């Protein structure tokens, strides 16, 4: 099994996968606890429209995906503040609108077929050196932002009204968080694919919430569950010649079931 580490494509895949495995659940835990898990899916659809635009313009799709996603994150934040009671509606409209745009743009692009598939289902086996740099760069930015804004994010997530009254710039924190989410989705899409990005943001968190005894613990366990899923998933994909994105997510779900089963067996429910 260690032989897989001798291939440079596999080294890149693992490095990119590990980065994504850390970032997705770390952002995901805040999404889940604020009951905004749907955002992951919405940004994934928006990123796909970005990918389609990039293909049509013959420009690196990952950059256009990032641009679309971040632009929309700011737009959604703006909408959320104006129509606070209909924030789910903004999401519910944004996802199909993006998908529609993606389909139309793709129909204008010649020979987009196979490349599109790699964005839909992930293409960890074809991570280029340049993609790896971008993913590492984005990942470090997201991580740094999470460390520096940890106390604001936790405060706003636990009790937004209290944070606001205490004088925290809640609006700014929320806007930054939306941008970070958009960046995370765009970078992870390349690895696990549009359809599975939000799974990697949510499933490891669900596993962690079953076991955690503190917020720090929940964060650490989420990341651990993400890392384990990616490592095991990619190894399985390599040895059994399976689709990597799917294997990773199925591993994450398997881990969740294992934890649920363990708790049930021990009578901890």
């Amino acid at each position, binding site marked *: 099994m260690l032989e897989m580490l001798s291939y440079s494509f596999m080294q890149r895949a693992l490095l990119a996968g590990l980065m994504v495995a850390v970032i997705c659940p770390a952002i995901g835990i805040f999404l889940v*606890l604020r009951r905004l898990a749907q955002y992951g899916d919405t940004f994934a659809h928006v990123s796909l429209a970005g990918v389609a635009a990039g293909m049509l313009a013959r420009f690196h799709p990952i950059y256009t995906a990032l641009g679309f996603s971040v632009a929309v994150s700011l737009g959604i934040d703006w909408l959320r503040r104006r129509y606070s009671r209909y924030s789910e509606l903004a999401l519910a409209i944004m996802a199909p609108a993006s998908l529609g745009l993606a389909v139309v743009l793709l129909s204008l692009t010649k020979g987009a077929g196979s490349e599109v598939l790699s964005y839909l289902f992930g293409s960890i086996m074809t991570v280029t050196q340049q993609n790896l740099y971008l993913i590492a760069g984005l990942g470090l930015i997201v991580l740094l932002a999470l*460390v*520096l*804004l*940890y*106390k*604001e994010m*936790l*405060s706003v997530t*636990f*009790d937004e*009204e*209290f*944070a*606001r*009254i*205490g*004088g*925290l*710039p809640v609006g700014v924190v929320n806007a930054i968080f939306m941008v970070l989410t958009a960046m995370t989705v765009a970078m992870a899409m390349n690895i696990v694919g549009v359809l599975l990005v939000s799974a990697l943001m949510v499933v490891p968190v669900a596993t*962690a*919430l079953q076991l*955690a*005894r*503190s*917020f*720090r*613990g*929940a964060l650490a366990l989420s990341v651990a569950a993400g890392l384990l899923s990616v490592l095991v998933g990619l190894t399985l994909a390599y040895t059994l010649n399976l689709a990597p994105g799917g294997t990773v997510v199925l591993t994450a779900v398997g881990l969740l079931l294992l934890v649920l089963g363990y708790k049930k067996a021990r009578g901890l429910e």
Partner: protein
Amino acid sequence: MNTPLVKLKDVSFGYGSDPVLEAVDLEVRRGDYLGLIGPNGSGKTTMLKLILGTIAEPTRGKVELFGVPSGQFRDWWKVGYVAQKAASFNSGFPATVAEVVLTGRAPRRGLLRLYTREDRQAVSEALEKVGMLAFKDRLIGRLSGGQQQRVFIARALVSHPELLILDEPTVGVDVEAEAQFYRLIRELRQQMGLTVVLVSHDMGAVAHEVTSLACLNRRLFYHGSPEEFGTEEQLCELYGHHVRAIHHHHHD
């Protein structure tokens, strides 16, 4: 040092066209223990929101905190707040008591700064004050209503505020926890010289505790010492039938 900590001058406010507050004048001075009472829907929480700046502007009149117009006030750590629904958070939230209380330090620490040992020290002290230090590492959702309330008081105290505002803190806690709560506020006032505003619709309990009383029902009906406030008959005159109804409801 004689500027009132809170000053409302001729304040009126309505969410729509109906007024919720009308021509309210109120001052809270350093060292006061003010009981703000009134039936449900009388505008108590709305008045606090105007003071705390969650409602930006009154329709008419002025709100000042520590002598500063509330729109320009920046030292929000000087005001500790325990909301009416503080305990209605997501009880599955994976945070310990200490982690929750620590969030009360965030504004004081400043943006992009990490918590320091001083912050953690302040958390222990605040938990000690409310008698919850032993529960420091418990999940917040695993505590009783009364214990959670004390944790939220600790979160309000951890920034070392000068003014503590509590919105209906004894709703939904048992009689023993209620007695414990009033004892705690008495201690905090003695030890820290805290100024306290306590909102309640339970006239009976509050009148024994506070140093001054304000009765709100859209307008402010009485503001003065509880001793002069008088008997229940006068109370009913002031409020119409509201207070009696509430009173009975509460003791059911």
